[in-house]
């Protein structure tokens, strides 16, 4: 069973953190990612540029509307994700709890809707 772990945090607060702390977090992310690769849970994952770099696209009546910024202004923004394979929700949430970002912001755990599944 696959789950998408979406890591949300406050971009502004994240950017304001001291350099040493950021470096420490990066090292923790490296170790976490290595860990889930070794355990066979890892299917993919990336860090995202801040929401201020986002562009939102809509198509209405055949016309493409392009706007600057994320689709919704919220206090916490999607900052990265992991796609994992886990045997059930308990394993998925246990993995989510080990993501360094869970200590600053939060991690939303969503089951993947597999093609053809009702």
């Amino acid at each position, binding site marked *: 069973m696959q789950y998408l772990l979406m890591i949300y945090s406050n971009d502004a607060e994240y950017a304001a953190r001291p350099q040493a702390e950021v470096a420490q977090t990066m090292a923790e992310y490296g170790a976490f990612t290595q860990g889930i690769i070794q355990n066979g849970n890892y299917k993919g994952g990336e860090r995202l540029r801040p929401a201020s770099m986002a562009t939102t696209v809509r198509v209405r009546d055949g016309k493409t509307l392009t706007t600057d910024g994320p689709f919704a202004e919220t206090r916490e923004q999607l900052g990265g994700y992991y796609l994992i394979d886990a045997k059930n929700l308990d394993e998925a949430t*246990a993995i989510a709890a080990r993501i360094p970002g869970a200590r600053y912001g939060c991690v939303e755990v969503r*089951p993947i809707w597999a093609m053809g599944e*009702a």
Partner: protein
Amino acid sequence: MSAGNIESVFRAEAGRALATLIRLVGDFEYAEDALQDAFAVALARWPVDGIPHNARAWLVEVGRRKAIDRIRRRTSWLHKQHELQAEATIKAHAPVGDAEEQVVADDMLRLIFTCCHPALNMEAQVALTLRAVCGLSTGEIARAFLVGEETMAQRLVRAKAKIRTAKIPYETPDASMLGDRIDGVLATIYLVFTEGYAPTTGHELLRRDLSREAIRLGRLLLQLMPEQAAVQGLLALMLLHDARRDARATAGGDLIRLEDQDRGLWDRAQIAEGAALVEQALRTRGAPSPYAVQAAIAALHAQAKSYLETDWRQIAGLYDVLLRLQPSPVIALNHAAAVSMVDGPQAALNLVDSLGAREKLDGYHLLPAVRADLLVRLDRKDEARVAYREAIALARLEPEQRWLQRRLDALG
């Protein structure tokens, strides 16, 4: 063979039969449908053949076969593979027969932990537990919680859909998570109990059933996990509160304070059972469970000859322990009330006022209510009147407003 007899067998066996069927069928909803099918067959057959010797095993076996039928009927090209797998799973499990008690107990625990999974919201946990574990109908649960049957049905459908699609495991959590997860189960059971115990008007009878179901759940959980002190503590707490039920309100639904209750109406056998459980719970090493400490306080009250002859010193000490385990304004106020019985109303008033200054408790009616009581005892009537009026304006439950109004009127 009356329909009533059959109903009571269904009611007694529904939880365990469903728990076993979920393991066999591997899906909550299939298992529920299968059990309903089995009930339908039983309703047709039992009045003629009699209730089978092992009714649960009979229901599980019929349900298992019905589940296979249903899966075959539902099979379409799109779901063929999934359904065939499901059918293979069911067939792979041997028919149950006279299943070992331990196996059934494990099934039941798995069911309880699934229904009380933290990935479900509290309302959903409560509804699902009452439906699946206690075997209450959707209509019964809806009426007890004063919501429409349609709303309750949707709540249950959504919860079951989440169990399936997010793959909430049908498992007893492993040791690393067990403590937290037991706390979650206990919180759900206690919520069911307090829903039944809260004295709101109207549906008193239905609500009373909720308290009984909560106690039944507590007993079941203790039977399944006899070593867990927190479970002993919760069951003790519920038994001790419930033992005083007949004495705590007038026929008209007005609250009667502990000091004015007719202690002759308290259920002595239930108090003895609760008190014995508290002792067991507190003998366990490590930090006591907050439920056990609350139960110990309730036991001291329940065993006291009168309000004045209560062991207030020990009660004040237990509230102090509870405050450290679980700081909350309600507990702080109860602590102050106990202190007033040991060190007098002025000492307690100091505690209450410093609590009011320390924490944001605007809008919390118990703070002025307790202040008012203490002011009366200090003979500061004008200030007491102001405090009672403040409390009345903030109280939300009608019986509480009426009780505070009577206190105010008594001041003249």
